[in-house]
């Protein structure tokens, strides 16, 4: 009798264990795409502090290029979108911990990140260009920097690039450092420096708000591509996102969003 009780007890425990496992398996096997559709919401992690890509608008709603892309993707998946504002440093951790389903926040596709995340096809190419006064036609390449004053925000990748790669090659130009990109652009507009380098999309809100008369010039100095980041092991969701992105590009919706935020045609 005692043995029977013991045995049934063990069986019971094992049963619990297995049922636990079973539950676990079923949740990871019912794929994330179905889960998103079941919950009728796509949770999107983004910074919310990076205009014009993603930021709080006048109505305190998350807005911007990334936000519009996210809304359109969600629409094509047939679900609502929910934005989860997250600091950049916690973005990948938040995705891994399933605080949100995807990251649409200018996350650049890199080989390093691909080891821990999956990326959709790229939805935007960001470039760093030479930026000059609207009327300046004499600076078009890095070689034209010779003898000029080039402004850049202190401590940025752009500053490192100018100092470590451009300066040794071209030589003999002055690097003028600012505390932030905005002051370097204002000084460029005032004509106290000859050029700066920056991502023309990222600085667009600054240029518009301050009515700066500046333009990008020449070929892109470097380019990177951002994609929608998804936790590894969710090929169905990734596939659905890629389909949505492709469809957006084909039917012109993507173009409209792009022009709305950047005032230029997508390349």
């Amino acid at each position, binding site marked *: 009798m005692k043995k029977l009780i013991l045995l049934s007890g063990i069986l019971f425990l094992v049963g619990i264990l297995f049922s636990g496992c079973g539950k676990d398996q079923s949740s990871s096997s019912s794929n994330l795409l179905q889960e998103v559709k079941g919950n009728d919401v796509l949770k999107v992690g983004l910074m919310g502090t990076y205009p014009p890509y993603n930021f709080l608008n006048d109505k305190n709603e998350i807005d911007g290029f990334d936000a519009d892309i996210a809304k359109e993707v969600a629409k094509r998946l047939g679900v609502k979108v929910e934005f989860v504002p997250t600091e950049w440093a916690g973005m990948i951790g938040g995705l891994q911990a399933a605080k949100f389903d995807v990251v649409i926040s200018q996350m650049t596709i890199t080989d390093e990140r691909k080891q821990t995340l999956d990326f959709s096809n790229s939805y935007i190419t960001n470039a760093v260009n030479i930026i000059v006064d609207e009327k300046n036609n004499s600076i078009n390449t890095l070689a034209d920097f010779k003898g000029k004053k080039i402004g850049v925000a*202190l401590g940025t990748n752009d500053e490192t690039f100018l100092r470590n790669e451009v300066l040794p090659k071209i030589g003999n130009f002055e690097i003028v450092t600012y505390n932030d990109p905005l*002051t370097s652009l204002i000084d460029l507009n*005032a004509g*106290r420096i000859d050029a700066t380098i920056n991502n023309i999309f990222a600085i667009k809100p600054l240029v518009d708000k301050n009515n700066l008369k500046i333009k990008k010039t020449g070929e892109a100095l470097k380019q990177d591509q951002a994609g929608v980041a998804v936790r590894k092991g969710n090929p169905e969701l990734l596939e659905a996102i890629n389909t949505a992105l492709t469809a957006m590009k084909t039917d012109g919706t993507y173009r409209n969003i792009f022009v709305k935020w950047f005032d230029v045609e997508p390349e």
Partner: protein
Amino acid sequence: MEMILEDLPLFALGTYYTLYLTVVSLLLGLMIGLGIALIRVFSQNAILIGLSKGYISIIRGTPLLVQLFILYYGLPDIGVKLSPMTASILALSINTGAFLSETFRSSILSVKRGQLEAALSLGLKKWQAFYFIIMPQAARVAIPPMGNTFIGMLKETSLVSVVTVTELLRTSQLLIAKHLVVMPFYISIAVIYWVLSAVFSIILVKVENRLSFYEN
């Protein structure tokens, strides 16, 4: 330490700019300060006095960093483009001028009125009485508070790093961005600032002793 020795020329250049800014702004500030103090003590012109009071109130009542920003980034909107160095010297001199004018005013007022009356009764003209009798006595009283302003100014030159002048602070920030190490550079410039202000103090003590000649 090696990093610092390797970049010694940059530190020397930064120190040069800091000293240059300090000395030039101090000289200009002294002139502005003296002028304003004279207006406030001797002038009968209500408009001049009002302007001086307004100047002191505005300049002492707003941060130097803000004044610098307005001079450098604000003025181009109305077509006035100052070079980084000019804007810095202007902002620093206008700022010290306001503080020094109050120092001078109080030191002039500290000389007893009887001195002026005695001088005038001896037949000196008003400017003579001021130049030969009041000024030497007032100058000695003014030295210790001037020392405060001078040393304060020396350190406040660090603010002009925001308008792209590569003085000591900006030098260290550039080196930090290059080496990705912070403390050695900040500590280095702290030492340099301290040495500079110590030298300033010594000079001021010498000047004060020299002026005490009139006391004996």
